[in-house]
């Protein structure tokens, strides 16, 4: 019987089953050698989507909770391309494009988690916790590929090939998924909706 392993968080993990999607249906495979193509590069994908329209009233749940006990020490990377960002009418210019934040104090940390959001007039803000952030202009972020990643406990952000921003970690364990297009309050209610198009996003383990 073939076995399949994948490496995650520095450890090899054995898979119990392997599926391959064909004709929009997941099919369980038994012959692993025929599943994997030696001429292919495989990305350990967590979530991917294209053309997500955030209209100020909706949001998209990626299903991935990076600060959960299972995922807190796993390295991952977000690649996102945002366009058509405009302030939500009646909002407070803190419209959340992408976020996973505990809206309060938890484990001695204020507002643990991450936000990528509008920050008043012409600025956006990539924020770790309550007080650590990087504030690029909206113009520099829109219509460019933005990378956000966590590696060995540090957070990094980069607009295409520009300088990598390093932000220290400020977090604790909590079960909140990364959400696109809004923030989520501690009672589960969405707020700080955004108006934008996420042309492309992928979240992958690195």
């Amino acid at each position: 019987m073939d076995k399949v392993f994948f490496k995650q968080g520095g450890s090899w993990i054995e898979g119990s089953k392997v599926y391959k999607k064909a004709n929009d249906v997941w099919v369980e495979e038994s012959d692993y050698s025929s599943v994997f193509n030696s001429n292919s590069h495989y990305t350990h994908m967590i979530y991917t989507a294209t053309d997500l329209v955030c209209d100020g009233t909706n949001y998209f749940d990626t299903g991935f909770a990076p600060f959960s006990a299972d995922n807190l020490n796993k390295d991952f990377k977000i690649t996102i391309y945002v366009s058509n960002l405009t302030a939500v009418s009646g909002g407070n210019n803190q419209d959340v494009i992408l976020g996973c934040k505990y809206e309060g104090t938890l484990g001695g940390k204020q507002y643990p988690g991450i936000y990528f959001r509008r920050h008043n007039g012409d600025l956006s803000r990539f924020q770790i916790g309550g007080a650590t952030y990087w504030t690029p202009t909206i113009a520099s972020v829109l219509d460019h590929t933005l990378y956000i990643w966590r590696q060995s406990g540090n957070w990094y952000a980069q607009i295409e090939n520009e300088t990598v921003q390093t932000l220290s970690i400020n977090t604790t364990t909590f079960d909140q998924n990364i959400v696109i297009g809004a923030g989520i309050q501690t009672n589960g209610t969405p707020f700080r909706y955004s108006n934008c198009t996420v042309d492309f996003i992928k979240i992958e383990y690195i």
Partner: protein
Amino acid sequence: MAISKIRLNGVTQIDLTQDTVTASHLHTGYTATGADGLPVVGEAETGGIVIVDTIDAAGGTIRSVTAANSLSVTSKTITTNGTYDSTDEGYDGYSEIVVNVEVSEMNYYTGSSAPSSSLGSNGDIYIQTGGS
């Protein structure tokens, strides 16, 4: 009639029959006489770029070869990671070999239960851990 060999009183005076020059081996702009006694007009060029498009069994594709002094190109085995055996005959005179290996981008997902139907695209792979 073309003449390639002349003998006088039993002695060979001129013999072109063993000559090996051909149009492809003679530099352009030059002429010679071939083994058959007919004129040979040079067609060979140096310093050009020879484009080869040979897909080997391993999937490598030779897209271009820049030849400094040679136009002699033969098919060679290029591995999928783009390496080649430089001691193999036929690489002499190459200043550069460019290899583009076609690698497809695939995704795989992991999870502790069976994948949901909305996850992923055709061709993607899902590795389940645990469960039954």
